[in-house]
């Protein structure tokens, strides 16, 4: 479905259908006639038919709507903004975060903190990273601004816990190293758009 019809907020031009409602008859007899007409029209049975049909659909055609939530879960959109994940590089397994601090800067609820240091390989190393989920409003700016697509929104929307701290440290959010193969590339908020290659200009390189 294209987004066009949602972007058109000019209600009057859309194909809405007005329901015709006849005026109430002025005379008592007229009203009585209307009652009789409606009574014998059998509309009430249409209602009964609808519910019966739905029951049959639900019971025998597998069109039950209910999901038994804790046991079954609905798939969520990649754009859903749940608890953050920190991704790793697929080849090396090293975490992607370079400690640039842009997420920290852009965070509108000021809940991201990181500690960095100059490591032995003359690189910037993130020694600790934390998000205060008591404050986080899951706006997704951090994922959008991240130049490395290191911090993304994961699918963990069940954020009840005995302690807030259960989510907030680097290791809690980082893809476990043994689960690296299952790590999925994020295509939600802030991810590279499909036509990104066409949208940027190439930098000339001498080699």
């Amino acid at each position, binding site marked *: 479905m294209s987004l066009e019809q949602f972007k058109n907020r000019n209600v009057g031009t859309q194909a809405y259908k007005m329901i015709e409602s006849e005026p109430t008859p002025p005379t008592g007899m007229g009203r009585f006639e209307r009652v009789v007409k409606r009574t014998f029209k059998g509309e009430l049975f249409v209602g009964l038919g609808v519910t019966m049909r739905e029951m049959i659909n639900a019971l025998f055609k597998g069109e039950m709507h209910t999901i038994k939530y804790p046991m079954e879960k609905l798939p969520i959109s990649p754009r859903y903004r749940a608890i953050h994940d920190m991704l790793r590089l697929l080849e090396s397994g090293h975490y992607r975060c*370079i*400690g*640039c*601090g*842009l997420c*920290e*800067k852009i965070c509108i609820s000021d809940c991201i*903190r*990181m*500690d*960095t*240091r*100059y*490591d032995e390989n*003359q*690189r*910037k*190393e993130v020694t*600790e990273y*934390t998000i205060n989920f008591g404050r986080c409003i899951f706006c997704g700016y951090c994922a959008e601004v991240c*130049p*490395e697509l290191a911090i993304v929104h994961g699918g963990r929307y069940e954020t009840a816990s005995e302690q807030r701290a259960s989510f907030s440290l680097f290791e809690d959010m980082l893809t476990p190293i043994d689960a690296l193969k299952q790590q999925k590339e994020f295509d939600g908020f802030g991810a590279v758009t499909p036509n990104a290659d066409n949208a940027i*200009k190439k*930098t*000339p*390189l*001498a*080699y």
Partner: protein
Amino acid sequence: MSNEITIKIDGIEYKTQEGEYILNAARANDIFIPAICYLTRCSPTLACRICLVEADGKRVYACNAKAKDGMEIVTSTEEILEERRAIMEVYDVNHPLQCGVCDQSGECELQNYTLEMGVDSQSYMIPDTKRETINWSSVLHYDAALCIVCERCTTVCKDMIGDAAIKTGPRGGASLDKSMKETMPKDAYAMWNKLQKSVIVPSNGTDETNCSDCGECIAVCPVGALVSRDFVYTTNAWELKRIPATCAHCSSGCQIYYETKPTSIEDTTEKIYRVTNEWNYVSLCGAGRFGYDFENRVEGKNPEAFERAVEALKKADTIRFNSVITNEEALMLQTLKEKLGLKLVNPDAYAFQNFLREYGKPAGKLLYGSDFKEVMKTDFVVSVGAALRSDNPNARYAFNNIQKMNKGAGLYFHPVGDNLVPTFGKSVECVAHKPGLEEAALYLVLDLFADKERLPEEIVSYLDSFHSKGTKIIKEKVMEDVTETVVDKETGESKEVTKKVPRMVEKEIEVDQNALLDLLGADANFPETFEKMMKKKESFSMIIGEDLYFHPKSENLAKLVALIEKACDMKVAMIPPKTNSLGVALICDLDESAEGYTVGYNEAGDFRLDALGEGDLDMPAMNQQEGTLTTMNKRVTPTNAALEYHGYELNDLMRALKFGRHLTVDWTPLLASRKGYQEALFDELPNGYSNSGEEQRGYALKNPGKRASNAVPEKFDESIALEGEIAYRCNPQRQFNDFTDKAHQIFESFSLYASKSKAEALGERVEIDFDGETLICDVVADERMEGDIVKIPDFKSAKDIYTLFGRDRYKNVTIRKV
């Protein structure tokens, strides 16, 4: 000064001074002209060429072109914009794109100007060269890959600091395609051509800089190429909270920003990550930039210790303190003296106070007449009695800056030889006289510079007594006519030709001989050199150092200084010995010696109040308290608390004694009771610089005049000159006091400092005998020192160096190997 002129920038008229650079004129009037390589107070480098403007229809560089009356300047035309954009594109060629991990990200001028010029695509390319990251010294970290070779670091190091420790060196990159010259804008091409050939290297040819580690190059670096080793990758610029303050290490009182942030995620107490400055208008030294973590971390208040402190103050006879305190604290101590009748002992400020008083009598004013800002504008500077390299960095910067920027000259009188000062400029003459002969030096200054008509007659005749007629053999070039017979080969004719041929002739001439010069050990050619130095010089200044205050005949010296100021049209500025010595000298009535029960404030005593965390009751350090400092530029400048302090302050003690105010800063307006100070509320004191570089910090001290006495200086006493083994009380560079020493990035140890040859002779460890009292310390060779005098630092109050040296700064000692 110079005349006011009117220029037109983008069609609007502005007033400026004649001879001002267009860029500075624009900046002073809040007009933006992009510029990367230019530093106010330093010479234009012309490396970036981005400050291109059109003046009267001609393209000029705003940092380099002087404004003329009626000049019409256009800051941006289409052509200029194209040029600037090309320049920024070139800067971006091969510049690493990992802004995320760059320390400068967020305050990077390359980022800013790239955005400003709207660079959204790249037209140029060249193969990259591998450039290594290197640590130049214990504090300097240079990432050549990030360097855009704007040369601000080399410029500031040469023109302001004087070390000239770094220079541009070869990069070894591919050379530009010559065809580019036709196709790209010409300034961008020229800039690129230079950029592609150079990187910054230490100028001594090694991988390590041999400098004073002031870190000013870090401050001026527009990109992340130069960063302090301690700071690198620890935080991003935008996370830091900037707290404007006044540096508390020496008497310069430089304006600084403490930049703080919580220590880590676990530990949320604020920590100072670095110190920055308005580098266009103030230059810091290594102590100011790196010696910031001297705070006194106190967990909480200790009421028992507080009670004991109140009792101690009640029964105290003497308070011993040093000058690393604020004006407010000094006033509190003075209040204690007045109310409780105690004695106030502060050796450094006491000597300075006496000197100022003796100077004030004949000079007819409270304070020295000028300051270092004024000194910096002169073109001939004389320094007497100051160890320029270590006593006060800003005095040294001023001395150096005069040589570099004003085509100036300098005379440096000091007994301890120094090989850095002569490198400040070609017209710097050093006179290493014997300690004790400072009087003679001042008489020489009188002789050289004074308008004899304004001198008292006895002085004129006294000065004349040193002059004698002597003869001197000089070699002179004489042109002689020589006639030769030349045979023309073609015609065979011989012809006589007369030629002029130079010939050296020895000649005896009559010269004026000055016995003072001989006495001071000046160079034999001094008169000629001096004559050259004096050429085209218009304004003169003199820097007075600590040696004079601690001189046995300091009273006479003070009179001489007053006389020089009067008779020579010299701008005189003095260097207060310690941080707030000037403030203490003006606020407190000091006593010479301690007696009875002594309370020490940051000093030894029977009860010790201490901001170093070693005493009986903790006090806040300078970066933990509000207050004002009196700087050597005769300003009262505010400083702010950068870090939390949980303990008691001096004001709490005052309140317990019923003399206190609600807050420490409530004492600030009370300073008005002391001469020179104003009734100003602390919260209304500004602390910054205007766009034109005008210092808007606190207020300037008043210098009230009074009736001048007609005291005539005495004749000098040659006999007090010291001979033999001499120790000089002088700190190494970057060390000023206990607080500097506490900072983790200041490594200079408490040792005996000596010139290389002397250090070799002394060995590794020595015992120094001060007439019975001894001090044992290591020997450190200082490559910049010359001669046999050794330096003993006084920055550790625990070593009680002031007592060892007594009233003098030079002392005959016996040094034994241990």
